[in-house]
Each structure stands twice: as structure tokens, then as C-alpha cells.
């Protein structure tokens, strides 16, 4: 056939800029670390800082991994942070005010998470409403429920066992980091190596095609929403362990950082796609920046500025590199084609002369 004449052409951007794109945030991370190490010396570059960075805010990593799942299937879960707050409240309230065993409390909180995902699913999948609206509404509703359970700050010794398994340390790193790491690896495996992960991907990019390929789109989307809420509830339980307390509204502010990390995670490793490793690294990259700035003595406002700027710039640079890659590739391809063209022209001539 005429159209198969050219040999396989490597269409992906290789070379330096391809490498930069693939590892952009990691490179930025190294640079940030280097800058802090130079400017603040020992103050930053020690085991303690590592412990800080991998510590408390790991709950954001869990939340980021949670919202990433429905995002991959094309659905926003804006209720995740509110689910997290509620789970935090349930865990602490039951164990402290109601004398329920802390593990049982945590289990109940996680079951509540499952239920929330289920309800989100009813509206999104069964009734067919835009998930952004549904989860926003459900989130607001959950905020009310949390406040209704208690408007007090709750804490108590009953949480100790949970605290132990969260903030205990090994090699100066809190256990919670390893849970996040494991969760990330599990999700990575799921998205890379299992057919359910692939199905989620197909749904996210083409619902109709997935449906006509025998994927139960609605079931999978529903499952993703449930997974998101369940993991968010897990994040809330972990947060109970990390802080040993609960308060209405405690985790609502984590939604933005979680989404930020997920989107930042799409700019490298597998550019253009949601991926657990990218999201995971992004959480800790942003955390490194914030901790470092704080250690250098910057006020808290610098955190927001850094967070916002890092997110926008990283995504922008990634987009620009992509554009540049395409241009560079163009040039290469043109050269390759030129040679072929010459050959073609000769052939054409012979065709013409024969007609």
C-alpha cells in the first residue's frame, strides 16, 4: 500500500527537552533543595527537616491520591476534603465522647466514607448530574453534619493507639509517610498494571468508547467515587492520629493543595496524564518548598505565594516545553522526509511519463 512506505518514525520527543519534561518537577525539587541547603546550611539540610517534610502533611498526599482516582475517570470530587473532616470528627468524637474503641471508631469513619461515595455515585451515575455540582453540594452538606456532631475541639488520650501508629518514627521518618508510599505504589500498580486501571483511563478519555467496548462505565465511575471518599475518610482517620484531635472545618483547606498536587503531577513522569507517582512527588516537592521558606524565616504568606506560583509556573513551563518539543521534532521529521521526497518525486515522474 502506498501509505506504508515510510519506516517507523519515532514520534515522541526525545533528547534533552524530553528528559526535562519527563523529570521537570524532580529537577525543580533538586534545585529547591540545593538552594535551601546553600542559603540556610545546616538549618535546612538535616534529618530533622526530612522528618518534617515527610510528616504531618502526608495526609495531603492521601487526599491527593484519593481525588486523583475519579479525576482519572473524568470526575471531580469536591467533597473529598469535607469527607476527610467528617471522618476526622467521627473518629475522635466516637472514641472520646462516646467511649467507642478507637479502632472501631476509625472503622466507622471509613464506612461513612464508603457511604458518602455511594451517595455521590447515586447522583452522578444514576441521576446523571455533573459531579462537580453534586460533590460540591454533598461537601457543604457534610460540613453541616460535622458541625452538628460537635462544634468543639475534641481531643483525648483515647486516641493514643492511633497516634502511635501514625506519628511513631522509623529512621526519623513518621510511619504515616510509609502508608502514603504504600498507597501510592498500590495505585501506581493499579493504573499501570491492572485492567481496572486501564478501564478508568479509557473512561476518563472516552466514555462512549469505553461503554461500547464492554466497560461498565457507570459502575466503574461509581467505584471511583467510592474509592475517593473512602481514601478521603482514611486521610481523616490518619489526621486524627497525626493531630490527636478534631474540629469542625479542620481539613477543608486541604482540598486545594490536594488538587494542586494532582495537576502538578500531570506535568511530568507521564506528561499529560494523571499519575500517582507524579501527584505523590508533587506533594512533597511543594512541602519542601514551604518548609524551607519557613525555616529561612519567611512569614506564612510566602507559603501561599510559593504554592500558587509553583503550581502555575510548573504547569506553564511543562506546556511550553511540550510546544518546543513539537517544534524540534518537526524540524527533524522534515529533514527525514526531504530525503524520502526526493525518492517519491522520481517515482512520480515515472508514473506521469507512463500515463
Amino acid at each position, binding site marked *: 500500500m502506498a501509505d506504508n512506505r515510510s519506516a517507523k518514525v519515532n514520534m515522541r520527543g526525545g533528547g534533552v527537552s524530553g528528559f526535562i519534561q519527563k523529570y521537570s518537577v524532580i529537577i525543580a525539587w533538586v534545585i529547591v533543595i540545593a538552594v535551601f541547603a546553600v542559603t540556610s546550611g545546616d*538549618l535546612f539540610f538535616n534529618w*530533622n*527537616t526530612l*522528618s*518534617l517534610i515527610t*510528616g*504531618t*502533611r502526608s495526609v495531603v498526599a492521601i487526599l491527593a491520591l484519593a481525588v486523583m482516582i475519579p479525576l482519572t475517570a473524568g470526575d471531580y470530587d469536591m467533597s473529598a476534603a469535607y469527607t476527610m473532616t467528617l471522618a476526622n470528627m467521627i473518629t475522635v468524637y466516637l472514641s472520646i465522647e462516646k467511649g467507642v474503641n478507637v479502632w472501631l471508631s476509625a472503622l466507622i469513619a471509613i464506612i461513612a466514607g464508603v457511604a458518602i461515595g455511594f451517595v455521590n455515585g447515586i447522583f452522578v451515575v444514576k441521576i446523571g448530574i455533573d459531579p462537580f455540582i453534586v460533590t460540591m453540594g454533598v461537601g457543604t452538606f457534610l460540613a453541616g453534619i460535622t*458541625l452538628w456532631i460537635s*462544634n*468543639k*475541639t*475534641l*481531643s*483525648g*488520650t483515647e486516641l493514643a493507639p492511633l*497516634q502511635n501508629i501514625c*506519628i511513631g*518514627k522509623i529512621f526519623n521518618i*513518621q510511619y504515616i509517610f510509609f502508608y502514603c508510599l504504600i498507597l501510592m505504589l498500590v495505585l501506581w500498580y493499579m493504573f499501570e498494571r491492572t485492567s481496572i486501571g486501564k478501564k478508568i483511563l479509557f473512561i476518563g478519555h472516552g466514555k462512549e468508547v469505553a461503554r461500547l467496548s464492554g466497560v461498565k462505565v457507570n459502575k466503574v465511575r461509581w467505584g471511583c467515587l467510592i474509592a475517593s471518599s473512602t481514601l478521603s475518610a482514611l486521610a481523616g482517620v490518619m489526621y486524627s492520629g*497525626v*493531630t*490527636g*484531635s478534631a*474540629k*469542625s*472545618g*479542620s*481539613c*477543608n*483547606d*486541604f482540598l486545594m*493543595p490536594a488538587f494542586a498536587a494532582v495537576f502538578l503531577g500531570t506535568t511530568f513522569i507521564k506528561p499529560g496524564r494523571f499519575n500517582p507517582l507524579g501527584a505523590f512527588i508533587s506533594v512533597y516537592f511543594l512541602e519542601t518548598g*514551604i*518548609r524551607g521558606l*519557613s*525555616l529561612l*524565616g519567611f*512569614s*506564612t*504568606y510566602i*507559603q501561599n505565594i510559593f504554592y500558587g506560583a509553583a503550581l502555575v509556573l510548573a504547569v506553564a513551563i511543562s506546556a511550553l516545553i511540550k510546544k518546543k518539543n513539537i517544534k524540534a521534532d518537526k524540524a527533524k521529521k522534515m529533514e527525514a522526509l526531504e530525503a524520502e521526497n526526493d525518492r517519491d518525486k522520481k517515482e512520480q515522474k515515472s508514473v506521469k511519463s507512463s500515463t
Partner: protein
Amino acid sequence: GDSSSSSSSTAGSSEAGSAAESSADVSELQAKLDAYKGLPEFDTAAFEGEAFDAKTAMAGKKWLTIPGTSSNPFNQTICEQICEIAGKVGFICDLLDNQGAAEEHIAGLNSASQKGYSLVDLQAGPTPETLGAQIQECMDAGVKVVTSHLTGYEQEVSPISANMGAGYYDVAQLLSDWVIVNAGTDAKVLVVVSEEITSTLSMENGIKDEFAKYAPDASVDFVNVAIVDWGSKCQSETENYLSAHPDTDYIISIYDSATQYIVPAVKSTGSSAKIVAYNGTPFAVDYVKTGDIEMLLGEDLQTIAYATVDFEMRTALDMPIVEEPTLLRMWTSENVDEALNADGKCEYGIGYGDSAKLAYESLWGLS
């Protein structure tokens, strides 16, 4: 920009005059602190207000009390008690539930005159300047607007019919005294503050002055985290500080609600810093019980409620107003059991005695 959250001020360098105090004075501090170990007593002799017949004078009045935010149980409880006391005296008092948004306070004030309130109590809310137009409107309509539990005695706010101060400055001194007594005059101290709160200034001054006076060699750093950011930043900011200053001896949490984040920060960094705090919120009392907080200065909500009603009745009746006392108790592992209810749980209003209640009621001619 005028913000510098980590304004490291080695207290005393500015006030060299008082830097010569010797360690002999430190034992004086111990004695001062010891006075707060037991049940607080209302000092009837020192109270300047006259007695009056509240029942008759207040008949038919209608008050509105607006907590800074209902989601803070501390505010909410005081307001609830104010209404309870109003019931005892015999006039109407409504409580406006809100979530601390400016427009909710505004709505409350806007409706005050139309709904026939004669007095609005703004309980530990935003500073009255932020509600200036609405307060002015109320006052023009003859409604008295009173702020309470908002500022130190020495601070002034406007526009307002009257402002009931509290002993924030003294409280801050007591917290500092504890640190100096227990960690010496070269203590390394972190103070966690929220500068958007009006009374913070009073407390910051109290701390700075006390350290300048008794422990000029101490290092005192302030970290500012706005209350709205506590959830996302308080713990990490404290962790960062402790990580950069591993030899910190004490953390002063001027509002004990922040200890929700400070306690885990101390744990996660493995710091040996001890915590002292002010307010007496039940969960913080719990921390005293578990040893996470070394000393907690508690204030009696019931006293505050009575004092507020007293102050505001005097305002409403155009009587001369007086400085209302702040009754405090120092909670430590030694006496914390007295703060628990029968179930061994912490609860507001336990462990402060009834002296204020009795004193006020007799002043008002109720008993």
C-alpha cells in the same frame, strides 16, 4: 506590608532600664503564681460597683448577644450563660447563632433596632471598627452596643457605647512568670499568636514587658498564624520553629485552642519544649491531664458571663461602669482533677467555685 510573623525580639533590649532585676525577684514570681493554685475568690472589697435592684430596673428590657462565632464553644457558652442569667434577672435575651462571618454580625446589628432590642452585646467578636457603620446606626437609634471580652483593660475601641475590658495583660505576665520560674531567666521561648485578634496586642505586650523586666536574657520569638489558617499552618509552623530551634524550653500558646496543633507538633518533632496556655477550653484541660500541657491558665466562663451582665446592665441603666474582675485558676497536673466532672470528663465551669455568682447576685439584690 507590615507583617513579620517571626519577629524575633529578644525582650529587654529595648527596655534596658529594668534589666537589672536580680534572681531574687524570681522567687517573688513563684509566690505570685502560687496564689492561683486554689479556688479563685471574688474580691468583694475591691469591687467598685454599687449595688442596685436589677429586677425592677431591667424589667421589660430586651438584649441581643452575638458571639464572635458559634463554632467556638467558648464564645457560645458564655453567650448562652448570659441569656440564662438574664432570665434569672427577669429580662429577655436572644442569642444570634453565627459562623463568624462579618456579614452575619452586620445582619444582626441591622435588625437590632427594628426588633426592639435595647442593647446588643458583641461577645469576643470582631473589633467594633469593622462594624462601625452598623454600630453607629444602632446607637443613633438608641440601641446600646457593648463589646465584651475583646480587649485588655488598657485597650480602647470605638465606636461603641461601652467596652468591657479583661485582664489579658496580667494573664500574659502570669504565663511569662511560669516560664521564667521553671526555665530560668535564659529561657528559650516560642509564643504562638494570632495578631488579627484585638487582645493579642495586649498579651504580646504583657509577655514582652514581663520578660524584659525579669529575664532580659531570655529569647522570645513570636510566630503569627491567623486563626483561619490554624488547620493548615499552625502545626507545620510550630514544627518548623522547633526543628530550627531544638533547644526551645517553652511554648506559650496565648489561646489554648491552638494547642490542638501545637501538641502534635511537639510530639512529631520530638521536642522537649513544654507548653503553657491560656483560656481553659476543656480539651486543653485534657492536655493538662495527659501532661501535654504543663500549665493552663483557666478563666471561669460563669464569672465572665456574670461580669458581662453586670457591666452591661450598668451601661444599659446609664450607671457608672466599673472594671470587672477576671477570675483565673492555674491548672497543673497537681490540681487538674478538680476540673473534672463526675465522669472524669472536662467541662466548662468546673473548678472555679461560685464566689462570683454569689457576689453578683447579692449586688443585684437577687438573693
